[in-house]
């Protein structure tokens, strides 16, 4: 009937979500690693965007928000924002964000916001080759890009008889 929490001490360290948004507050990518309904997601997005956009440039990259920690970094016109749990290592999360940006940069060749807007599905595919369930699945840049390349190729092969979708 009762299930004992076997844990005496439990460090809960999951990345809950990652959001990409522009300085004008337009959402460019949203990856949720926890189950929430649309309404909740919208509310969180709206509030968090406001909070992050209100931050002054000299402030640190971390803020406490509700019961989470938010790690964010601005790259040109895009904010990359991750919500992690309180026991997680914020500094390595910054590295995760940076790695993702590097992957996008390599893939698109000097990536800019427009690339992400017009090729949002590719941005997701790349993210999904790098992180799974909020954790890094591959720590080698080369391997992530190779996998994406192969998958893209697969798309092309299958499409040889069908007209260009994109």
């Amino acid at each position, binding site marked *: 009937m*009762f*299930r*004992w*929490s*076997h*844990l*005496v*001490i*439990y*460090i*809960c*360290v999951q990345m809950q979500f990652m959001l990409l948004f522009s300085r004008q507050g337009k*959402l460019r990518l*949203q990856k*949720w*690693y926890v*189950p*929430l*309904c*649309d309404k*909740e997601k919208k509310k969180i997005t709206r509030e968090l965007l406001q909070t992050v956009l209100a931050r*002054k440039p*000299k*402030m*640190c*990259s*971390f*803020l*406490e928000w*509700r*019961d989470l920690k938010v790690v964010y970094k601005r790259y040109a016109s895009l904010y990359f924002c991750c919500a992690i749990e*309180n*026991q997680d*290592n*914020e*500094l*390595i999360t*910054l*590295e995760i964000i940076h790695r993702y940006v590097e992957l996008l940069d390599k893939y698109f060749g000097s990536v800019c916001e427009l690339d992400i807007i*017009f090729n*949002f*599905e590719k941005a*997701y595919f790349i993210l*999904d080759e790098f992180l*799974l*369930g909020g*954790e*890094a699945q*591959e*720590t*080698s*840049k080369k391997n992530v890009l190779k*996998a994406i390349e192969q*998958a893209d190729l*697969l*798309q092309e092969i*299958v499409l040889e008889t*069908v007209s260009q*979708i*994109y």
Partner: protein
Amino acid sequence: PLLRELIRTIRTARTQAEEREMIQKECAAIRSSFREEDNTYRCRNVAKLLYMHMLGYPAHFGQLECLKLIASQKFTDKRIGYLGAMLLLDERQDVHLLMTNCIKNDLNHSTQYVQGLALCTLGCMGSSEMCRDLAGEVEKLLKTSNSYLRKKAALCAVHVIRKVPELMEMFLPATKNLLSEKNHGVLHTSVVLLTEMCERSPDMLSHFRKLVPQLVRILKNLIMSGYSPEHDVSGISDPFLQVRILRLLRILGRSDDDSSEAMNDILAQVATNTETSKNVGNAILYETVLTIMDIKSESGLRVLAINILGRFLLNNDKNIRYVALTSLLKTVQTDHNAVQRHRSTIVDCLKDLDVSIKRRAMELSFALVNGNNIRGMMKELLYFLDSCDPEFKADCASGVFLAFTLKTIWLCPLCHFSFLQAGSYVRDDSVPNLIQLITNSVEMHAYTVQRLYKALLDDISQQPLVQVASWCIGEYGDLLVSGQCEEEEPIQVTEDEVLDVLEGLLVSNLSTPVTRGYSLTAIMKLSTRFSSVNRIKKVVSIYGSSIDVELQQRAVERIMKISLIDVALPLPGGPAPAPAPSVPTSQPTFLLDGISSQPLFNDIAAAGENLFDSLCLLSFLFQVNGANIFEWFILFYSTGIPPMTAYNKNGLKIDFTFERANPNPNIAVITIHASNSTEADMTDFVFQAAVPKTFQLQLLSPSSNVVPALNQGTVTQVIRVLNPQKQQLRMRVKLTYTHKGSAFQDLSEVNNFPPQSWQ
């Protein structure tokens, strides 16, 4: 139109209305295309829908289409279909279960990239039912030699375990050779999987302790190996893997001496050899520090760790300063002296522009207050309180109170009065409140009157203080002259000396009429306690006929009222307050008179100032009835959920306070506060909780595992309870601790949760 064409078109819209119109038009076209069951364009249409969804428009009518795409044989379709599923479906909808079969098939697909899609989707959004159904497939893939799939399967397994903890056992065999892998991706995800298993099960933890040498070797290779272009980040080899290994080592080394010893060298090596010029190096150092502080490391290593944090505090990078403060906060209890060395740097951080840094510096400052530094710290903290943002004021006031009552009273007899130099903060109506609290704390009367008497000898300019002191002397003057104080050296004072002081107040031109009223009344009361009745009669007759009769009258009446007011502070779980003698009154007696019962944040901000007044006066007091009233008070008013006592036996009391976790309203966050009223510390204190099956529980790290004796501190720990079915919360708690050399264990049921905590 093609996807990119659509995006371009929509972006040309100049107004929201124009955009909406375009979207509606496109959606209508897409809907009819879906109705026609057109396979060719389905993929493109769903992609368009996903774009529009990101702009904020509804896209639920595309959910089933995603399923059809997933079921398609075309890779392009599957790619978009799975993406759509992850974006549009969530586990609350039954529709998502229809994916299960597709995913199952795709997990066995001949193309690894299709298998990858399936694993990714399952690992991101798989519901408990899906996880149950597909766990077997994931387990199979965890054993494959294909590293591309193996790494994904490992993380998918993590998700399965999080959703359905009972399934953890079935993954155990597959973990056998995970760390022998050369592939970093597999290594990294394997370490994540092992970490999850060890954290969830003490048996798994013991089982995996044998991996410590292997983990140490892998970490050593990473540090010692030369440049590896594939995994290099600013001269560091695979920082992600290093950090995860350090974290796993932490969990394995915690509470195990042998494991801790086995990792001692590598930790020292990482701590001294890691390049600190970039964030990535500091990220590793940070994790190393966390590990060192958590395991049973030798003192040299701990000092090394704190010094790293000390250097972090001086780093130009704000982020580094932030994590330093966070970590120091965690270690300040156990390594107090080491952290004290960095006090001035920490206090400097109070002036930082960044709110998060300020907050941490504030909390750390409270923790560092002690008898030696209190005057200086007080100045800084008061200045901070004065100038800080409203969001801080209540917390700061509360923290100031706690810091002083918990530290100074027991440690430093005379240091609190510099605090009272902030006289401008104190308002008159704080006095009756304080008097009530003093009345309530029966066992502290002798101590209080002695302290207050000494205060009067020092300084009679602070009127509220003088008033309270007078009142106390009037009430407990007998305790004063008989030298009953146990907590500190009882002073030798005669009745005449006491009366001298009180009379001095009557004549002093520093005293307001109200103060004179208090001191006169005190003198009158002493006629029943002292033997020098004649002297008292003389004084009263002189001043009793003073011109200021009306003021005197009022003062006296007020004092009489105070003595009769029913003390009704909310002290759940504490002993019942002393009953009022006769006249009941409807006057509210909460410290924050006039604060409505509807908790609103505005009230807290406003209350912050009022609260601070009371806190100023209370600073030279103590915990009342062993409870941190103000902590509870503020929490109570901010959530409206009253705190409760969950356990109270053999001197161990455990109180629960509640907050709502955001963003998920189904999660209640409970903080336990364990206090110990016996005269010996309770060490190796461990709190465990169990809940019925429909709930899920998470316990975070406790603040310490020593509950100090005589209510000198509390151990806090956070519990998160997921209660999606909003059922009545019930809990069983198991407590173990060592007391006076013997081991204690107790099991108890907690059933008195306030309804607001689970509704």
